[in-house]
């Protein structure tokens, strides 16, 4: 804890002037009586402390990180360096257009690239993350219905396997979320969908390939049914990596989509963000896109704001979203180009299908063995849990001991004892082979010495944590007497 290095009167003195400016013109009643209780440490103590903390993390740069649905691929360093050039870092968000043409050119180009790669009519870059993109998308669906006076539509349909953000976003836009079951083959249950559709349907939110790791084959039929009922189709871009440059959501019949640039366009996950969740729309939803957007008038790049786009659902952050993340994604898109984007889908699918096949060969069960994997796949450890008493969480924790970040566990909820594995295209064959060996070893351990697995991890900075205590005896901030 940084506070443990703190001593009264110790300061990182290189950072400030020794003399403090006067505050005498501010009324005393508005002033703070004593400095905030922040740590008092030297610069070196801070550097050493945070360097050591960083070493307690698994990360893409240090470990294989096959966290399903999160696309933990290599984050090229050039993206960070080039987005951090002084001209970009020092640009004030409200700087006049004359001091912004370079930045705006990058944003305009990125809008165009994302439009073409998704097959949408228009793109706005401003949503700050996937969930905000979802909010924007559903808000646009609502704005569209409202503008037509079609106000009786009250429901958004979501598959039972959807990310939790889908129903939560629908509710934030004032809709009810209604779940549609997934069929045994991993595709959506079409009969249930038909029954759910009606004059109350505002739209449906789908991920394709879906969260169970397979491509929804009847997407055209679904699009037809939803449109016939007067609803719109929302594409959750969480799994865009699987089809980048191969299939476009716009061609599948989606009206509105969001992309997760921190997944598909390899901007860093940063220990939980910042992300970026641009939205793309078909022509009929274009007027409602969130502002600001960038346009080009033939000579200059210009901002489109509430003034130029009065039907917009509005602004979702004070300025232009996570601009620095967008710059990183732009650099990535230029490094890859169209051929590179094509290869993202090809090699992420090759890696996933190879890894699935190898794991099945050594005795693991696929949740959907008859289906082609997309860029990720689901294993179910139902058998191991039943026969050996070693569950998915135990496997996940033991993987940490072998230097692999665990895949996503217990999501989607409909597959029991599941592991959602996404190796991504940037992993080499030998790393996938090594993962298979680790899984095989853990399986043997589970058979011969199950406690070793059930007690795992053994080599991390801490052993399994008491989550119940964390929630019951809330300790959310350091206090000087604790």
């Amino acid at each position, binding site marked *: 804890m940084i506070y443990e290095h703190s001593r009264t009167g110790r300061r990182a003195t290189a950072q400030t002037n020794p003399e403090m*400016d006067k505050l005498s013109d501010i009324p005393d009643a508005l*002033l*703070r009586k004593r400095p905030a209780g922040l*740590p008092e440490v030297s610069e070196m103590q801070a550097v050493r402390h945070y360097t050591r903390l960083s070493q307690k993390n698994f990360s893409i740069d240090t470990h294989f990180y096959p966290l399903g649905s999160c696309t933990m691929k290599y984050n090229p360093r050039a993206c960070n360096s080039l987005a951090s050039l002084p001209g970009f870092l020092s640009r004030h968000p409200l700087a006049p257009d004359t001091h912004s043409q370079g930045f705006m050119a990058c944003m305009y180009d990125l809008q165009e690239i994302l439009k073409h790669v998704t097959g949408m009519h228009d793109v706005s870059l401003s949503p700050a993350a996937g969930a905000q993109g979802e909010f924007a998308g559903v808000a646009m669906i609502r704005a569209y219905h409202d503008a037509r006076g079609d106000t009786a539509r009250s429901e958004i349909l979501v598959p039972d396997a959807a990310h*939790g953000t889908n129903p939560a976003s629908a509710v934030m836009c004032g809709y009810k979320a209604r779940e549609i079951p997934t069929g045994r083959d991993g595709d959506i249950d079409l009969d249930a969908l038909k029954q759910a559709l009606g004059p109350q349907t505002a739209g449906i939110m789908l991920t394709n390939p879906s969260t169970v790791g397979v491509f929804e084959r009847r997407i055209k039929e679904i699009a037809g049914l939803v449109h016939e009922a007067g609803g719109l189709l929302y594409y959750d871009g969480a799994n865009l990596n699987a089809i980048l440059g191969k*299939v476009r959501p716009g061609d599948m019949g989606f009206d509105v989509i969001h992309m997760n640039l921190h997944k598909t366009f390899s901007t860093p996950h940063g220990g939980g963000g910042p992300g970026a969740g641009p939205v793309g729309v078909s022509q009929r939803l274009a007027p409602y896109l969130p502002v600001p957007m960038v346009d080009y008038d033939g000579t200059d790049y210009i901002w489109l704001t509430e003034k130029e786009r009065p039907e917009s659902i509005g602004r979702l952050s004070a300025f232009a979203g996570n601009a620095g993340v967008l710059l990183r994604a732009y650099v990535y898109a230029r490094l890859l180009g169209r051929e590179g984007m094509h290869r993202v889908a090809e090699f992420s699918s090759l890696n996933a299908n190879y890894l699935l096949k190898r794991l099945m060969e050594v005795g693991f069960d696929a949740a959907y063995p008859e289906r082609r994997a997309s860029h990720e796949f689901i294993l179910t450890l139902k058998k191991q849990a039943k026969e050996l008493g070693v569950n998915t969480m135990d496997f996940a924790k033991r993987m940490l001991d072998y230097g692999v970040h665990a895949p996503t566990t217990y999501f989607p909820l409909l597959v029991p004892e599941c592991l959602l594995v996404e190796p991504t295209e940037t992993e080499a064959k030998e790393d996938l082979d090594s993962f298979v060996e680790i899984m095989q070893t853990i399986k043997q351990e589970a058979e011969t010495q199950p406690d070793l697995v059930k007690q795992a991890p053994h080599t991390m900075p801490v052993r399994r944590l008491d989550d119940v205590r964390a929630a019951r005896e809330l300790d959310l901030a350091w206090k000087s007497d604790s």
Partner: protein
Amino acid sequence: MPFIPHTEDDIQEMLAVIGVDSIDTLFDEIPDELRCDELKAIPAGMPEMEVSRLMQARAREDGQPLCFLGAGAYDHHIPAAVWQLTTRGEFYTAYTPYQAEASQGTLQLLYEYQSMMTALTGMDVSNASLYDGASALAEAVLMAVRANRKSKSGRILMPRTLHPLYRRVTHSIVRNQGIELVEVGYDGKTGQVDTSVLEQYAGEDFAALVIPQPNFFGVLENVDELTEWAHANGMLAIAVVNPLAMSILKPAGEWGEDGADICCGEGQPMGAPLASGGPYFGFLCCREKLVRQMPGRIIGKTVDLDGKPGYALTLQAREQHIRRSKATSNICTNQGLMVTAATIHMAIMGGEGLQHMAAACHGNTERLSQALCSLPQVESVFEGPVFHERVLKLPLSAKDALKALAAHNVQGGFDLSDDYPELDSAILVCATELRGEEDIEQYRSKLERVIAAQVQTPCQLKPDW
């Protein structure tokens, strides 16, 4: 192939294991008519060297003007160590700490962040961040409507002294849930919330009053009085504060008798570069009794099987991945890396370091204001005390003045005429600790020339025919 490690042999071996003859076969479940063409409209890939050249040219194009713009984003010194540590791969390329044992670095750092934010704001608890200040206010409003069970109206009092963009963002985010934002005017003399307007709403049903400190004009509000008024009228008090200002100003948790109930704001002044408006981070703190209404990640300290202290995501039953449509918000990914920078920034600066920085901003802004007000017909508009921004009235249109200054490579401030037409030709100026006397003199002399050029009386001689 950029970033793809496969050799031709690897590919063939892998295809053989899968039992297909080509990579293309892996896409055979996708109907043929959906497959797209080569996407010619997307440019071909470029080597890093060429992309570097392109980006350098574009970054240069934007120049590095002398910045006196604030209005919600501030040009501060950031200790070199902050971003050198933050971009370590172990922070930069990790994700949300779902596997706690393998993420103790991020988790402990977030716990330290929560500790520092509560110390700075005087509140009980903090979450682990939201997207930005404006969207954090929208979440605070939603939270207040849920938490204030006595209020049924879903109405919120929103002063016009609050950042206009924050008001717009809040409107976009909450409007589909039947929440109404009611504006409260300001006192033309002081630049503070007009308490006589506020008094008209006394006794009415509102879930909360929003209190900015400092407000958008840079002016300090009488926060004790406003907080008391809100509580006396059954409303929650939502503080919207600048975290750097909190180092010298009375913390939100101490406003009035009982303190503000929720405190949110823009974290950018804590270690985030201007960078065109993002990524920054929104912070959200509250009283402990409201913690279950909070949106976003929260980290708790606990113990492991051996009783050793450790950190974990907690109160997850509020969140979308557990609660789905019943969650407090849809937020998932937040602004983790920016919080990493902010935590290191606050640790290095310390409470006193931040006070020095804040006081220097205050001093420089006062010096700037005096220098500019020494020019003919330039005057300060409001009498209320300020933190590090001030509204100045110019003898020519704000748009023309700022445009002319920009041509001199000076970003002279924010044009208030669109959002506050009644203020006419007024601009909002800011001088952070980075804008010293030489910079201020440059601004003064350039504004002097701009004024002289534009208000020069036109030639009186008329041709006489």
